């Protein structure tokens, strides 16, 4: 074989192998929360667990990519995804118009409502009521917009303490978080009641957020959602973590 051709073949081979290596090493950076039971939390073994964690793994399997789960917080995750620090975020984000301006959203993987969690006499519009809401959450944005006094929380985990210590009179949380919060030992004895709030700003489509730098990823995530819903993985995960079917 003449030298130029051999060199060409060799370089082609190198390029190809490099490409394959890159494809194999293609890791999706997935943002998740760690203090939002029962969807995302650290279990007794110190490992990430919950509905969203399993969904994230299932989606990565369906997309046939290796995923690296990275813990973030609700107040930072949207901007981080927007900045491309994460490729996707499997955080139960309501697809609000404000967030849509920053990141791409997949098709909804379920629909959510919010829950007002407070003593029976404390209705949502009671003047002067201090409402605990997680920083960066749609609930916090809603409370602020309504002019309520917001007690900002770092995570849903902190809420039980805030309620127990009377740092807050009420909590405004997503429906799945409310499931865990209600049962937290610290608040179980407070005799708080729950009211489902179906206001448009507090309910609706929950989506995977995708870095706007990777628009092609959205199609793959959508297809993966369809796939895990069709092949039953979604329902199994749902049943494992939650007492009813997400829709």
């Amino acid at each position, binding site marked *: 074989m003449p030298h130029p051709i051999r060199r060409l073949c060799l370089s082609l081979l190198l390029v190809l192998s490099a490409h394959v290596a890159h494809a194999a090493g293609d890791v999706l950076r997935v943002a998740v929360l760690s203090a939002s039971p029962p969807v995302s939390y650290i279990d007794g073994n110190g490992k990430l667990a919950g509905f969203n964690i399993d969904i994230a793994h299932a989606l990565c399997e369906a997309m046939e990519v290796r995923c690296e789960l990275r813990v973030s917080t609700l107040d930072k995750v949207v901007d981080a995804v927007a900045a491309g620090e994460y490729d996707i975020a499997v955080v139960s984000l309501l697809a609000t118009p404000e967030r849509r301006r920053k990141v791409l959203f997949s098709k909804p993987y379920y629909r959510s*409502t919010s829950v007002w969690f407070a003593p029976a006499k404390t209705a949502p519009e009671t003047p002067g009521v201090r409402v605990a809401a997680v920083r960066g959450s749609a609930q916090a944005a809603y409370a602020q917009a309504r002019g309520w006094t917001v007690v900002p929380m770092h995570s849903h985990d902190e809420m039980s303490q805030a309620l127990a210590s009377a740092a807050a009179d009420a909590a405004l949380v997503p429906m799945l978080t409310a499931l865990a919060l*209600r*049962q937290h030992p610290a608040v179980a004895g407070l005799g708080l009641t729950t009211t489902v709030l179906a206001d448009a700003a507090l309910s609706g489509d929950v989506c995977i957020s995708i870095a706007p730098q990777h628009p092609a990823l959205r199609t793959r995530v959508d297809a993966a959602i369809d796939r895990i819903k069709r092949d039953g993985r979604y329902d199994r995960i749902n049943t494992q973590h939650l007492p009813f079917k997400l829709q």
Partner: protein
Amino acid sequence: MPLPQRLNRAHWPAGTFFALLAGLFGALFAGIVAWLAADQYGVLQTTESLRLKTIPQTLEYQRLARNLEVLRREGERVLHGDDAAARQQALFVVSLVASHPRLLEDERARALAGETEEFLSGMARGTHFDAAEQAHWERLSTRLTLLADDISVDGVNLANADLEQMSAAIQSGRYKLAVALLLAGVFLTVLLWLIRRHFIRPLQHIDRALSQLQPMGPPPALPASSMEEFQAIEGAIGQLHEAMRDSELTREDLERLATTDALTGLHNRRHFMHMAHGEVERAHRYGRPVAVGLADLDLFKRVNDTHGHAAGDAVLQVFAAILRETLRQTDWVCRYGGEEFAFAFPETTPTEAQALVERLRRRLAELDIAIGEGKRVRITLSIGLADASACPLEAALRQADEALYRAKTQGRNMTVLAGSDAGDEAEIDAEAEPVAPRS
């Protein structure tokens, strides 16, 4: 060739004809393929819709049905839970499910879930739970299960519309395929018929016409063909027939010119020699008799000198006519030289030949020959005969020549048989003036 009639007939170039036919079939086939493809596309579309839309919807219906069961299960917990916390949690789940947007979208589910939540909330607030309430819950419970069944079945039935649509498309595809096959069959039959009618049969006619083509036969009878190429061949066959007939006529003319003497119409010497050779050889081979002879018009030169060559020619022509009348079909005669004639008599002994030529001699001697301008002459004939059954033609002719010479020397107007002592005495007509020559 009836050319004008040809021009009036339909005529197609075969290439154009078949290109048109192929184009027609191609268009037909493409149409059918498109027709079938439309159905297949429909099936694919429906399959895609079934996979991407209907099945996910069905699964959503199943989840809704399952949530109705969740309402029932959690309701049981609200009513019969171990402790207050568990009962409150169960009631919370009930309220979450009952206020979920998806459930609210379904009228039946919304009404029943609302009723259930209301009942359970009342129970949780501490309304007395007695047998009547238990019966009420059992009815609610049954209705929840029944509605779950209904919604579950509704979800499955969503696929029915798609399946029916698909089945209809496949059925229609089957019909279309049958029609397509039928059309292809009809087209093929028509094509074969056209090929047979316009190609094979004209070819068969041409083959027959060519094999039966005779130069002097009737012109080839070819039925009208519709293809230009065949019409050209048919025309060419007609022309070929004409050319063959022309050349045959020419050949016959040439043969006659080559074998006959122009003045008398008798065979010429060359042709006679050729034929006489054949007769002599045949006679030798089969041991049959054959006789030859030479004859010379007596004093013919004098007729020429006295009355001119035209008169001489007339005499020769009259003599030739007498020859033709007197001799038999099988006898050969030719103008051997100026006024000299040769004979060959197949199957004839010299004696029989002598009788024959004697008749000839006498007829000539008795005839007044008109030579124009009202003049008539008489002329006599001297003949030498020889037997050729045992010697070559040339030798026999030599003998006949010697016999002729003897006839001349012995007074003319007589027949001398070679090998005999003397010839028959001629009957001389002394009144044969003005030309009764005697040399």
